[in-house]
């Protein structure tokens, strides 16, 4: 096999997975009329980015970044991306809960959570 090919596919595997995950999420958000499914798609999309950050923090042979008795020769994984993603996850939860609250209100107001039906009802109102 061509070594360049293997390096692109296998060496960059985490990035490929991230891209696939993000595109799945994007696809769901754009094509599904169901609002809950849209929110799920949005979550998958965000998870892709979270995975991306986590792969950044990986150091070959690195261990958990807990400062102990190991001395200077211990290699640690980079903790910063993990900490950042803790915040990003919180942001994601806040977004999801607000979106779900809006869906509840939409269901009360329109009696449906399918976007095409809502659009039809909206069309009558203009």
């Amino acid at each position: 096999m061509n070594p360049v090919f293997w390096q692109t596919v296998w060496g960059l595997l985490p990035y490929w997975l991230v891209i696939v995950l993000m595109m799945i999420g994007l696809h769901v958000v754009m094509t599904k009329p169901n609002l809950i499914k849209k929110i799920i798609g949005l979550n998958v999309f965000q998870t892709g980015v979270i995975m991306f950050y986590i792969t950044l923090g990986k150091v070959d042979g690195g261990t958990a970044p807990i400062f102990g008795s190991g001395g200077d020769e211990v290699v640690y994984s980079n903790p910063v991306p993990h900490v950042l993603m803790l915040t990003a996850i919180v942001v994601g939860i806040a977004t999801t809960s607000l979106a779900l609250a809006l869906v509840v209100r939409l269901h009360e107001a329109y009696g449906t959570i399918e976007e095409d039906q809502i659009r039809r009802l909206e069309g009558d109102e203009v």
Partner: protein
Amino acid sequence: MSASWVAHLESQLPAIQVVAPMLTAPVCVLLRRSRAAWMLAMTVTLGSLLTSLLMLRHVLLHGALSYQMGGWAPPWGIELRIEVLNAFVLVIVSGISSVVLSAAPGSLPKEVPEERHYLFYAAFLLCMTGLLGMTSAGDVFNVFVFLEISSLSSYTLVALGPSRRALVAAFRYLIVGTMGGTFLLLGIGMLYMMTGTLNIVDLGIRLVEVQGDRTLLVALACVVVGTSIKLALFPLGLWLPNAYTFAPAEVSAFLAATATKVSYYVLARFLFLIFGVSLAFDRLHFDHVLLPMALVAMFVGSLVAIFQTDLKRLLAYSSLAQVGYMVLGLALANRSGLTGGIVHLFNHALMKSGLFLVLAAVVLRLGATRLQDVRGLGRQMPWTMAAFVVGGLSLIGVPLTAGFVSKWYLVQGALESGRPLVAALILGSSLLAVVYVWRVVEEIYFQPAPEGRQVAEAPLGLLVPIWLLIGGTVVFGIFGSATADVARQAADLLLQGPPVGPALGGSP
């Protein structure tokens, strides 16, 4: 003794600015009474205005103000950093927020039920927290976090609108806005991957040394897509017309003047202070993307505005066009162009919030903002409608209004960069603005009012804020050199690009 005390307080101002509205938002929720919540929110907003004025004074006299959260030094710790440019943005945001909020007790009861007012004030304060934080944050990750704080609260504000379509608008805004935020996060991740730092000053220093264009280009693209969605740059800003149309007019006035302006500042900061002109424009040629987008936004926004029958929607589409002018200033990337873009940031904030407050007054008296509803209103609400006309003239860019000053600099910038066609297009799109403003003026003044409609002039509580903002567009139109001088200083700072020097904290 007292001098050191003052100096100590001054060094705390950046933190107070962000923390004060954040902590008072839950107190507003606890208060529950509309009047009390408003008084508290008003006090805090005026406090923010005072704080930002003090910081502006400090920055102009003594240079940049830096606050290290928890005492951790940058680039490891979180830094709030106030420089000349963002000090001005802070003054604009807190100033216009104060004026718009002062109109809230007059306009809100018509559109939001009394028992939900305290939630409006809480969301308003949180949104302001996010916007002030985005402006003053010294590291890119906190820009993202504050952006999400302001976005989440603005979705809530939009959803408070009186019709059920506000909910749909808010949901769509949420989906698109979260996409934008996530793209920004991805771009920030790539910048971190290349440089190992998140601090803005440090990023600027390190990014020039990065080899290879591909990751840089993808990072820049992600950041620009993310901020352009928040900024409502056509075609990424199509969430905006519905959101502004169905939100309470008060909210539209607030968001039009602040949220898009802060996003503009964030975009300018990424382009000029992190990437720098030589990297973003000369090496990656990103002006080839921004310039056409800005021109298309100018024309599509104005063209669609001409065919609107609802005044709120008309103003919303006109906002899309005005965002085009501002981004055009960035894409020209020379002194006059940038000056025009930054002046327009200020001027458009003034006129659009003023115009949306006019619509708040119309909603208060008529309950609707369709073109046929305002027929003959010029005689019944003379002061309010006069404000609309002045604001409209400023949107067109008639001399002696603020809009003229910004367009003057933009045209000059286009000519200086050797693009006479762009200069002609700026003038051409202004003619389109004449058409949509004239349609409204015709209905207001040259059509008879419907039989038997009795409408009183807007209450003083609305007229005063309206005329503060609209009067501002005239004052800054006549004394345009004052704002232009400030904007030119800011443009020079942006064109200087990222700082050069040893990276903070040694090698990563």
